[in-house]
């Protein structure tokens, strides 16, 4: 029988990440004890962070004071959490699958003799569902050991509604961990933020499905129909060098929410969807009817984008632009 469910609350620049509250919804879907939240922070920021968690969730908050270390550091998290959780087995700890959570989860599991299930997107009949082969199949996992470290895909659950009925208790724990072999050297802002993407009303976005760099011309053609538009791209397109990284849309690129997002040959990796699914209207063109982009699109068109766009632009010209 599972004794504990813990949720690791992640934060950046003094703010709890929304993904923490999504993990709470995931915990709600698990048959198990009421979860507790764990937050690690330096002495100064720990108090407001744990206060926010206790007020918003009404749950027990374990606030681990890491002294002067004020930023995420994998080694610190792994050592501190391993020490705290060592005698709490059997437990599940749920961690957002972000750049922090995905970084520390496997090593944490190893240190605790727990199993590790990453990038969980759902729970089906008590098993954890996640994508494999780029979403071509769904894999169902269940723990192979008494305790488990789970990472939850951002956006897979909606953030839990704040519970205003009660305020949770806060237990402060002082971390003894002081000797780290890793030094952090600060955060660099993105070199690839693109205001053209954030102000555009329409984003025409390219995926690997456009086939080759020359086919970007089709997207430029489509762009002529929309005056306040910008070009976006999936990570794969930027990695291939078809567009530079300032055009990348996704969790590691630009997060956008235009009035119209026109996805061309984008299959819809979760990290891409996370960057654009709040767009008001989404049109997706893809040859594969099972492409995940269609799970967020309002209008789904199963066609080869390289044939469809010229056809679409021609028909537009027939209607609107053709000179007699």
């Amino acid at each position, binding site marked *: 029988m599972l004794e504990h469910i813990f949720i690791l609350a992640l934060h950046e620049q003094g703010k709890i990440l929304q993904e923490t509250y999504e993990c709470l919804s995931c915990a709600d879907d698990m048959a198990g004890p009421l979860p507790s939240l764990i937050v690690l922070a330096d002495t100064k920021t720990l108090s407001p962070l744990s206060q926010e968690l206790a007020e918003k969730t009404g749950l027990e908050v374990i606030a681990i004071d890491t002294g002067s270390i004020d*930023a995420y550091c994998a080694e610190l998290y792994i050592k501190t959490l391993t020490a705290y959780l060592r005698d709490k087995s059997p437990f599940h700890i749920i961690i957002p699958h972000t*750049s922090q959570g*995905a*970084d520390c989860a*496997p*090593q944490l599991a*190893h240190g605790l003799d727990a*199993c590790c299930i*990453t*990038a969980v997107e759902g729970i089906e009949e008590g*098993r*954890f569902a996640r*994508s*494999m*082969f*780029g979403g*071509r*199949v769904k*894999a*169902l*996992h269940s723990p*192979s050991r008494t305790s488990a470290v789970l990472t939850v895909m951002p956006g897979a659950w909606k953030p839990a509604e704040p519970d205003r009925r009660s305020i949770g208790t806060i237990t402060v724990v002082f971390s003894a961990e002081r000797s780290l*072999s*890793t030094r*952090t*050297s600060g*955060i*660099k802002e*993105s070199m*690839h*933020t693109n205001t053209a993407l954030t102000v555009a009303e329409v984003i025409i976005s390219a995926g690997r499905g456009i086939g080759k760099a020359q086919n970007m011309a089709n997207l430029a053609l489509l762009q002529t*129909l929309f005056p306040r538009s910008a070009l976006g791209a999936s*990570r794969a397109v930027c*990695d291939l*060098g078809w567009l530079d*990284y300032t055009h990348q849309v996704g*969790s*590691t690129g*630009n*997060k956008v929410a235009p*009035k*119209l997002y026109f996805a061309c040959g984008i299959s819809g990796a979760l990290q891409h969807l996370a960057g654009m699914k709040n767009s008001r*209207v989404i049109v997706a063109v893809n040859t*594969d009817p*099972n492409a*995940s982009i*269609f*799970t967020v*699109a*309002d*209008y*789904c*068109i*199963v066609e080869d984008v390289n*044939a*469809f766009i010229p*056809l*679409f632009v021609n*028909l537009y010209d027939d209607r*609107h632009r053709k000179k007699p």
Partner: protein
Amino acid sequence: MKILVCVKQVCDNPDTITINESSAWIEYGPATVFRMNRYDEYAVEEAMRIRERFPDTEVHALSLGPARVQSTIRRALGMGVSHGIHIPLDEDRYVSPAERAWIISEAVRGRGYDLIFTGVMAEDDMEAQVGGLISSLLGYSSATGVMAEQLFNEAGEIAVERELEGGRREGLILKLPAVLTIQSGINTPRYPALSHMLKAKAAPLEIIEQSSHIPPDLSGTLRAITEPSLSAKGEFVEGTASMKALKLLDILHGHSFL
């Protein structure tokens, strides 16, 4: 300096796979094409670039899998890796990250690698665990999602930048030996010259038989494979291509976009 790059062979066209009879794993079809995991290509390239800066560096590539993965090891040799290592698997099966990391760690322990690179994740099982687990098993420092590295050879340290959300980067200084999982975009992987590939084809590979005493609890957490339940949110526009285009014109006109 000795660098090991762990390369995985993955299928290039997942639309050719089917779920096997017991629904425990997948089966590849006759049209399935295999290639190196893309993230691992960036890892091989980054190792090559370190060797260009520090010519004494030795770079090895290792792959665990059935006989077919030898072509991926040879691809790494074609990119310039000096030594290829194959840990054979008798059958073409799923290997959990825990088992994979354990087998690799047992095989390379004591070989004096200063750096071990993997891709940030494998494109097939998408679990993103092996790098971190190897660092734990071997007691190496570790960083994931690496987008830049700078090696200070003298001090036995490496400075890295990890990719964060929104394209921001976290700077870290790690003590060697270290495991880095490499993110795509850190470099542009080279395309091996034909002459290099021909040479690689004939190069001998080191075969390391896996240890016979694999701990029993490494079988992992995978229980079943199913078809994804894609619930399309929106409307599929139907008809011939021209009809779809005309309907889309009307739709976008209706939303006042056109």
